[in-house]
């Protein structure tokens, strides 16, 4: 008799423990706006001559916290758009699990479509409708009205207001993106997906656009943004560096920069293109990349000094040589992390 009641007791205890664990688990996941676990995607392209099997994404895993501004940084063809389409339920991944606001992208895709805002990379509004009509259509599609969530878009829409009777196709690139952002925001989404929102937009508008994103972040909207511009990476809370369908690193921009393992030098001279080949031919130099006005280089060991390099370059016929030690940027980190530099 005694033994049996004791057993019952332990059973109940275990049961309680389990429910506690479950509760714990749900609270921990509820801080996540999005989780992506080992997602892979291959494209099979059937050309008349050969069957091409292209890997677009390989084993992508990352998590985005609620209210975070998360950047996916990578060059063209890295797989950013494919990834965004999988996250927004438009494409099915070959393997892996994606949850947005706790909903699975495969089974609960309808629930996700109610909750998120998506702005595709290509301008995807109705060009023959005016600014106001576009906004109205998208508001109604999401069962809301412009008035209801006007506070969200007010700051952006005020800039568009003078052109509200103009057709969307006749707007400038920056204006188009602002309108597209308004349309993606009008239903107060919990997660906002912006696929290359600043591509093809002038620098001033780009800056404005990022300021808007910061303001939206203050409204507790989780934002995932992809961009090929490395200078925009530092504006995100955390970034994932994406190259050829693989994530190289996920961290805050500050951490990524501070973890740069080498001393970095910038070199410039009169003949920049010859300089790059010359630099790359010097055996002591580990890497050399062109960064517009100067070349960024790292040495294989620290024995080489600035003066030795200057002497070497003067021997090769360069003049007005400037060599400076500099801090690494995200782009330097990206170059360093890419498999090319390791191979």
């Amino acid at each position, binding site marked *: 008799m005694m033994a049996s009641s004791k057993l019952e007791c332990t059973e109940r205890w275990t049961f309680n423990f389990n429910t506690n664990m479950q509760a714990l688990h749900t609270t921990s996941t509820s801080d996540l706006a999005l989780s992506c676990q080992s997602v892979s995607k291959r494209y099979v392209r059937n050309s008349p001559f050969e069957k091409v099997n292209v890997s677009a994404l390989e084993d992508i895993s990352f998590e985005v916290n609620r209210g975070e501004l998360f950047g996916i940084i990578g060059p063209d063809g890295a797989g950013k758009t494919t990834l965004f389409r999988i996250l927004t339920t*438009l494409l099915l991944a070959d393997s892996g699990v994606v949850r947005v606001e706790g909903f699975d992208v495969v089974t609960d895709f309808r629930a996700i479509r109610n909750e998120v805002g*998506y702005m595709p990379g*290509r301008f995807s509004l*109705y060009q023959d409708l005016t600014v106001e009509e576009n906004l109205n259509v*998208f508001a109604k599609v*999401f069962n809301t009205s412009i008035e209801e969530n006007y506070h969200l878009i007010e700051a952006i829409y005020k800039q568009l207001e003078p052109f509200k009777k103009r057709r969307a196709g006749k707007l400038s690139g920056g204006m188009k993106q602002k309108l597209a952002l308004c349309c*993606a925001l009008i239903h107060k989404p919990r997660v906002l997906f912006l696929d290359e929102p600043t591509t093809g937009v002038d620098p001033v508008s780009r800056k404005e656009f990022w300021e808007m994103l910061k303001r939206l972040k203050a409204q507790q909207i989780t934002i995932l943004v992809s961009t090929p511009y490395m200078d925009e990476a530092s504006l995100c809370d955390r970034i994932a560096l994406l190259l050829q369908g693989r994530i190289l690193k996920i961290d805050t921009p500050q951490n990524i920069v501070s973890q740069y393992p080498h001393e970095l030098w910038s070199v410039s001279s009169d003949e920049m293109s010859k300089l790059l080949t010359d630099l790359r031919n010097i055996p002591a130099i580990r890497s050399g990349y062109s960064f517009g006005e100067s070349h960024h280089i790292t040495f294989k060991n620290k024995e080489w000094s600035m003066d030795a390099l200057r002497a070497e370059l003067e021997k090769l016929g360069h003049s007005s040589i400037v060599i400076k030690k500099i801090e690494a940027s995200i782009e330097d980190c990206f170059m360093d992390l890419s498999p090319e530099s390791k191979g």
Partner: protein
Amino acid sequence: MKQFLVFIRKEYYHISRDTWTMVILLLLPIVMLVLFGFMMSTEVKNTKFAIYDPSRDVATQGITNKLAMSTYFSFSGYLDSPDQIEKVFRSGDIGLVVVFGERMYESMMHTGDAQLQLVADGSDPNTASTLTMYATSMIVQYQQELTGDLKIPYRITPEVKFLYNPTLKGSYNFVPGVMGMILMLICAMMTSVSIAREKELGTMEVLLVSPMRPVQIILSKVVPYFFISVINLATILLVSVFVLGMPINGSLCLLIFLSLLFIFVSLALGLLISSAVDKQMVALLVSALVLILPVMMLSGMMFPIENMPAVLRWLSELIPAKWYMIAIKKIMIQGLGFSSVIKEVAVLSAMALLLITASIKRFKYRLE
């Protein structure tokens, strides 16, 4: 419901702001109807004819007068020699030449064996045979008038009567065909192109990531084009009745019911096409190839189905426009009631059901 209405308004903006679409949608039916109704008809009217007449007697004069008086022919002039026959055909405006034999009247009265020759331009066989048919019947008529009193026994003259279309008006055949073609063209092509446009411009991507359901997206595309088709139906009927002189012998309600059913079939076909293509150009080409050509060739509008090889005859059974044409001919021209078009209604309904189910099933709610 609000989603739906705003979408219909959006579609209205798309159509009304694209001038060319608007022009095509509203003018194409009228232009086509007039083109087919007037220019492509095989009716003969005021065809010029010339006479080579070596006899110049009462008989030849009588026949010439009879031809010249009719509405089908108008007299152009006498030829001086048989060599001129080819020359006048080459000049192009003569459709028929009548060549009389020597001493027509005499040989007719005495030997009973007078000869004349009808020469027509065989490069257009349809017109040529119609012309010779008309001319022959008039000559036979003249002969009867002439010999009527003599009561020649054992002569059988068949009198051909074309029921429902006694004057053989071409529009009786073409108008139903053009109606079928235009409705199919507008409904199917326009819906498929407008959905393909959403895909091509990337707006479909945004619509998919929204609470809108595929059925809503589809229906909101269908409704505006349904209304345009109804307007077209009205203009087509008005033009065919008041300009082309088509009768509506049967019930107008039944005619409209059948047309609406056919419009629905066409819209469903357009949706099916749009579920398979991603580009506007492809949608346009597929519509043209899959819809217009078969409708023109296999619906019985241009070529009689009865004369086709068996394979094509079976294929024509699958063409919705064929069934629609049969049914509206029965209603408009023969003036028959519902009971005689039950088969056509059943076939069209089955097609509508099949197509709409297939297109909703096939609608992709993801990108691939």
